[in-house]
């Protein structure tokens, strides 16, 4: 499992970026395998951006399809292929907002639908009881923090982990402010938990 620590500063010119740029170039020339690799790398990000606006699965599927078709349609005008993740995130955000605008519900993203669906999920049976309790408390706290923090934290648990550029594009937020916002949202999340949430309760002896 991937370590959950968040160490990724915006990456510029890393091997991964070079690889992504190469995949974009190959896909642009019609290479299906390269395209499939791009889809594998970013399909979770695009889907999560759509879902983070509270879209149901049918609308989120439409947003995802529109985003990928848009990339194929705009191949010729992609100027920074190494930043294709941010481009996809921006496009998915715009398509999601268009769907919401169309349905006249922009002002009220339907977060509760997602929360209701997930709230019923049973913890993994094999999970240690203590861990399950902490997870349940974190989950209850998540419902109490602002929607924008919920959206950011959802993006932080996407696999593979999006870059700061991609997060910024998803949230329409300057890259420079993501670190501080992330810290503030995690602080709010921790603060929204019951004060007796003690990860390692000690026995008095």
């Amino acid at each position, binding site marked *: 499992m991937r370590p*959950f620590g968040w160490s990724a500063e915006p990456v510029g010119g890393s091997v991964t970026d070079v690889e992504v740029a190469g995949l974009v170039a190959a896909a642009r020339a019609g290479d299906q395998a390269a395209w499939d690799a791009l889809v594998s790398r970013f399909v979770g990000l695009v889907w999560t951006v759509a879902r983070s606006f509270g879209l149901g699965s049918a609308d989120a599927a439409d947003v*995802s399809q*529109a985003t990928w*078709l848009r990339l194929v349609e705009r191949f010729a005008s992609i100027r920074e292929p190494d930043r294709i993740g941010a481009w996809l995130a921006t496009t998915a955000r715009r398509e999601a907002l268009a*769907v919401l605008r169309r349905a006249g519900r922009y002002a009220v993203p339907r977060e509760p639908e997602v929360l209701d669906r997930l709230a019923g999920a049973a913890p993994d049976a094999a999970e240690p009881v203590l861990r399950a309790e902490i*997870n349940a408390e*974190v989950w209850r706290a998540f419902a109490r923090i602002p929607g924008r923090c919920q959206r950011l934290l959802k993006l932080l*648990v996407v696999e593979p982990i999006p870059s700061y550029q991609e997060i910024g594009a998803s949230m329409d937020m300057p890259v420079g402010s993501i670190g501080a916002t992330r810290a503030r949202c995690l602080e709010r999340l921790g603060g929204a938990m019951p004060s007796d949430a003690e990860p390692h309760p000690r026995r008095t002896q």
Partner: protein
Amino acid sequence: MSHPPDDATLLDALRVRLAEPVPPDVIAAAREALRWRDPDAALAILVADTMAAATPAGIRGPGSEVFTFETERVTIEVEASQLGHELHLAGQLAPAMAARVRIDQPGGGTVVPADELGRFAARGLRLAMWRLAVLVDDDVPINTEWVL
């Protein structure tokens, strides 16, 4: 005495609940998108959309909507209307010209003629994303943007 969980514990807990697998049909549709690659075509940009300013309508609700696409050579105006579970398109090329108009939708395409006045229509389409490809003799095709 208590300590709030550290960031890693918080994020790990969220991952347990929020990690949502992308539905297989969504992944399949994303992979399929490359088949619509058309590097030789000119792209007609959406420059006006009656729905952008009007009441809720569009392919998922009742009503109709007019889209205007432009390239340097041609303007394409299309009215999209929903009737039951079908999508109807009726459009006009300007300047007027005879052409073939292909309506692309995920899963397939349909070709209809545009007459000497540049008028074309296609009925009974699926309610799904669409774009038009305008084909005139040996010229490069003109593709509109995809419409959701």
